């Protein structure tokens, strides 16, 4: 069984989703339990996989036993595991929250939810560039439909833009893949990385073009300037649990840049360090755009959506700067920001459930206040998101600052990170005081202990991130080390000594 572990994070959500397709006639309760059971099994798989990784190091899985580079290979290392756990934690919170009633609008919600997880998990695990494209499409087509969950004009319009943009993105992705195949004759990432180290002549020109095209595609997925404008409207239009799950989707883009630009355009060969300057500049611009956006938002949904843009900037700048220590800090920040924005999206949704569709708009001071329970949860989310002690955001940002201090570009990074944090502090103070204090005295109707419990659970994971900061940072550092050890990756996949 252990030999098949790396493929299970893809197979479990797929099996759950397929089972749920056939279970359309079952009662809503049965489908919910089945859906949750799928996530529980997935958690168990990840725990086992973690144990195997700790004991035996990174694992490669050859689908159909076709040896690399001919068949498709999945690679499970600490980086993949770290991202799989982040996805799992976020998905669990979103699913439990949705099971309170939001999943009833469409009986295929659970099916799509698990197909989306399958795509995300697959993208984190695959060691084949074309397979990465396929998993991107799996997660995208599930997200197209999930975005429309609940219906409504705003969602239809956001979906139209989102789908069109991503279809164009997929086309560019395919063109980049064609160029890489034409120049290097392979699509296996380890094999590509080996051949890229020796590339020259016409192939080098093609590979360079492909690199910039890939940067463009992943920049679109991660919502970098100038391709970020789709995100706030899309995420703000999606229903609460869906938007919360979408918080991990831009991180898939960040992961793709991280993995591919380390393996293919990393340290060896004539194309080493391709695009680092462009990526850093674009990431800083994204940070600036995100900061302006956070300040311009007038409801909690928009504020959270702009938070996603802002964090993509922080992450990508760290990716562009590189270095084991900084990447470790960046991975810790990635887990933190994903969970924190997920919590914010769910909070905004809960406030709207209780007070009406516009209840999270803080300009409407005549509406009732969301009450103390949600207020405390908002405080926790805000403290974490801004990066104040004692929650995880503080440790993440402090570590990012510490790890980047001796880099050539550190001055810019410090300025951007600290400046954006100050703006976040102002934006969240304004949002919180207007939403919870400046509103008329009575509390909103419809207090629901279960909802508060789910949100508190997600808030508690932020607390755990902060309390277990030491061991988690070590895990993140191990993930960064696995990522940067390109030789070990090649040896694992191609099964021969690096040379």
């Amino acid at each position, binding site marked *: 069984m252990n030999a098949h572990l790396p493929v299970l994070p893809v197979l479990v959500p797929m099996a759950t989703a397929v089972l749920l397709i056939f279970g359309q006639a079952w009662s809503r309760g049965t489908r919910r339990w089945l859906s949750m059971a799928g996530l529980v099994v997935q958690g168990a798989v990840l725990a086992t996989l973690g144990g195997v990784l700790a004991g035996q190091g990174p694992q490669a899985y050859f689908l159909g036993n076709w040896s690399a580079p001919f068949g498709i290979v999945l690679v499970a290392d600490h980086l993949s595991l770290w991202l799989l756990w982040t996805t799992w934690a976020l998905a669990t919170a979103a699913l439990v929250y949705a099971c309170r009633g939001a999943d009833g609008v469409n009986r295929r919600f659970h099916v799509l939810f698990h197909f989306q997880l399958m795509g995300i998990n697959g993208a984190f695990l695959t060691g084949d560039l074309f397979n990465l494209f396929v998993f991107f499409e799996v997660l995208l087509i599930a997200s197209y439909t999930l975005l429309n969950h609940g219906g409504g004009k705003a969602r239809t*319009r956001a979906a139209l833009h989102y789908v069109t943009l991503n279809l164009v993105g997929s086309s560019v992705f395919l*063109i980049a893949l064609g160029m890489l195949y034409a120049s290097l004759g392979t*699509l296996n990432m380890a094999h590509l990385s080996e051949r890229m180290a020796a590339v020259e002549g016409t192939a080098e020109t093609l590979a360079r073009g492909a690199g910039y095209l890939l940067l463009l595609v992943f920049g679109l997925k991660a919502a970098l300037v100038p391709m970020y404008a789709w995100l706030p409207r899309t995420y703000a239009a999606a229903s609460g649990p869906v938007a919360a799950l979408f918080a991990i989707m831009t991180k898939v883009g960040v992961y793709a840049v991280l993995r591919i630009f380390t393996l293919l355009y990393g340290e060896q060969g004539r194309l080493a360090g391709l695009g680092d300057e462009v990526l850093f500049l674009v990431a800083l611009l994204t940070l600036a755009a995100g900061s302006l956006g956070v300040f311009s938002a007038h409801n909690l949904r928009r504020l959270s959506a702009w938070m996603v843009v802002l964090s993509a900037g922080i992450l990508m700048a760290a990716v562009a700067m590189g270095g084991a220590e900084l990447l470790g800090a960046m991975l810790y920040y990635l887990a933190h920001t994903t969970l924190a924005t997920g919590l914010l999206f769910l909070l905004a949704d809960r406030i709207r459930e209780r007070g009406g569709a516009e209840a999270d708009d803080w300009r409407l001071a005549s509406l009732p206040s969301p009450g103390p329970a949600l207020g405390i949860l908002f405080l926790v989310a805000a403290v974490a998101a801004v990066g104040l002690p004692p929650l995880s955001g503080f440790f993440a940002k402090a570590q990012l600052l510490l790890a980047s201090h001796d880099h050539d570009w550190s001055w810019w990074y410090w300025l951007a990170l600290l400046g954006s944090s100050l703006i976040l502090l102002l934006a969240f103070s304004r949002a919180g005081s207007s939403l919870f204090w400046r509103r008329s005295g009575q509390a909103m109707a419809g207090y629901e202990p279960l909802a508060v419990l789910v949100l508190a659970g997600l808030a508690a994971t932020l607390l755990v991130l902060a309390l277990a900061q030491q061991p988690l940072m070590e895990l993140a550092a191990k993930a960064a080390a696995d990522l940067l050890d390109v030789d070990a990756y090649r040896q694992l996949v191609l099964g021969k000594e690096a040379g």
Partner: protein
Amino acid sequence: MELLLSLAIGWLVACGVYLLLRARTFPVVMGLTLITYAVNLFLFASGGITDAGAPVASTDGPWTDPLPQALVLTAIVIGFAMTAYIVILSLRALGDLGDDHVDGDRLPPEDQP
């Protein structure tokens, strides 16, 4: 042969981009379809263009790289599904927004989420 193929791909992309920028759902769908065709041809050519060669590696006789053909097959299937989805979405947008412009026209800007 190479020149003809590259011109065809370039022309398809040019027409596709033009249609995409028309910002009406029907031309947008057509534009996306044209771009998908161009991408499929591009992928097909990425293994090198061989005339009358079998897609199997053999020592004697001309042979053509089979992998791009497999890739194109996958890309066609995915492209087909995505086109079907965006056609349905466009129809729904026509019903919901009352206009075939990608931004709709019934929704005032303030009504955005």
